[in-house]
């Protein structure tokens, strides 16, 4: 599935939850499902700077596609990074680097996706894009 199609799918899912509390609950459920992140990878090398909680993103290249594993010590941030990682996983570096879709604009996730530059979600996206760009160049 393309990045755009995955974004559409998540938009549809999120629209099922009209209020912020239900949206957070959905993210918390996603976080609780994401249990396979190895604790030994919770290291500074993979830490995403600029988040209020600790967030880790581990990029890998598998058969010319990129894959992102993620974790956080906070549930809502973990749900968000899980969602973002799944959107960009199993895509090529070129597709990720050239994707112009703006998740901040697409998803209505209240204060956690405000377009402020110091926002954690912004840092998560930047980490993914920078990794893809390095490989795509």
């Amino acid at each position: 599935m393309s990045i755009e199609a995955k974004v559409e799918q998540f938009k549809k899912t999120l629209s099922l939850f009209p209020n912020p509390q239900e949206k957070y609950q959905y993210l918390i459920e996603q976080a609780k499902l994401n249990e396979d992140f190895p604790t030994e990878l919770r290291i500074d090398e993979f830490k995403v700077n600029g988040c209020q909680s600790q967030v880790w993103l581990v990029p890998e290249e598998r058969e010319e596609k990129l894959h992102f594993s993620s974790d956080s010590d906070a549930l809502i941030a973990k749900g968000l990074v899980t969602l973002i990682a799944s959107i960009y996983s199993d895509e090529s570096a070129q597709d990720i680097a050239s994707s112009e879709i703006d998740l901040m604009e697409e998803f209505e996730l209240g204060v956690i996706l405000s377009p402020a530059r110091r926002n954690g979600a912004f840092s998560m996206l930047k980490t993914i894009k920078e990794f893809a760009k390095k490989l795509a160049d």
Partner: protein
Amino acid sequence: MKQVSEIKKDFPIFQRLINGKELTYLDSGATSQKPNIVIDSMSEVYKQNNANVHRGTYVLSSETTSKYEDVRNKFKNFINANSPEEIIFTKGCTEGFNLLANSLCKDLSEGDEILLSEIEHHANIIPWQMAADKYGLIIKYINVDKNFNLDMDHLETQLTNNTKIVSLVGESNISGMLPDIKNINKLIKSKTEALFILDGAQLVPHREIDVQDLGIDFLCVSGHKMLGPTGIGVVWGKKELLEKMDPVYGGGDMIEEVYYDKATWAPIPHKFEAGTPPYVEAIGLGAAVDYLSDLTMAEVQKHSDHLRLYAKNTLENINGINIIHTDSENAGCTFAMSVDGVHATDISLMLDTYGVAVRAGHHCVQPFHRKLNIDATFRATGYIYNDEKDFDTLANAIEDSLKILR
């Protein structure tokens, strides 16, 4: 004090709904909300009087200047300073500490010591660290004990002939502790010649202050935490000390005579206020002082004490909650909290969905959080527009959030 329900009517922000719920604002420790009188005073200046201060020979400038200088007098009365010249306007408490650190430390000698506490706000740490690096000074920290109070015995042992500056929080933005300033001042003065600076960021909005009675040398105040606008604060200092100090910022308005190769300084307070000052913000602060003075600070303090006891009892009943709060009888209405296994940002995001605004993080007191081995806490602070119901709403919202987060 007048009823909280009546006070709330003076603050237009409480008409807002947040996520469809009434606003329960419990983050006044970060910034307070503003009453109409403050908002209107500022808009009035822009509409009716606006002109640069201390410059013009025309009606508008003269009106604005007199409004601006009146605030100095109001503030002098508010903290019982000796004279309005002792009131220096800054852009906030942080700038106040930077001003004092830069001006005072350059006259110290290598090896001289600055004494802070372990629970200081970064604004009362970093400026001293920067000055210490520059001038070879040593910073020492007074311990905060397991009950989140200043360790007075440790303070006593840390005071030596090398101690030149002691700078301490007046009301902690974490534990609510209220150090016994008057006695600490006596102790400092009996053992050293050190200057005593008080961080009044949280203290001045909530409690009656008499700088002469306390005997301290300097006080830093933040305007926006006491109903005033952002971008304005006050440094109060004893006149004889301020007169001896050099200015830190150079520019217009702070000079007496300027030559191509030198300049002489204006008398205090203006020598510390280079450039066009934030006079509209200062006038807003003046309106905030009027509002608090009308309530009377004695009543504001009584309200804070009453609310703090209620909040403490209510919050302590929440299953699994850890509260970083002093065990002293007197304390500020500030509660930094954590729940084992649940991240503070998750709790504060969930609370927001109930219309409850609290802050999550280290509240600019990172070293102390590190000492307690806690990444982050969420913090609720009460003020004049908060009542018991706000803390009930908070407690219920925390319990509901924990059901989802655990």
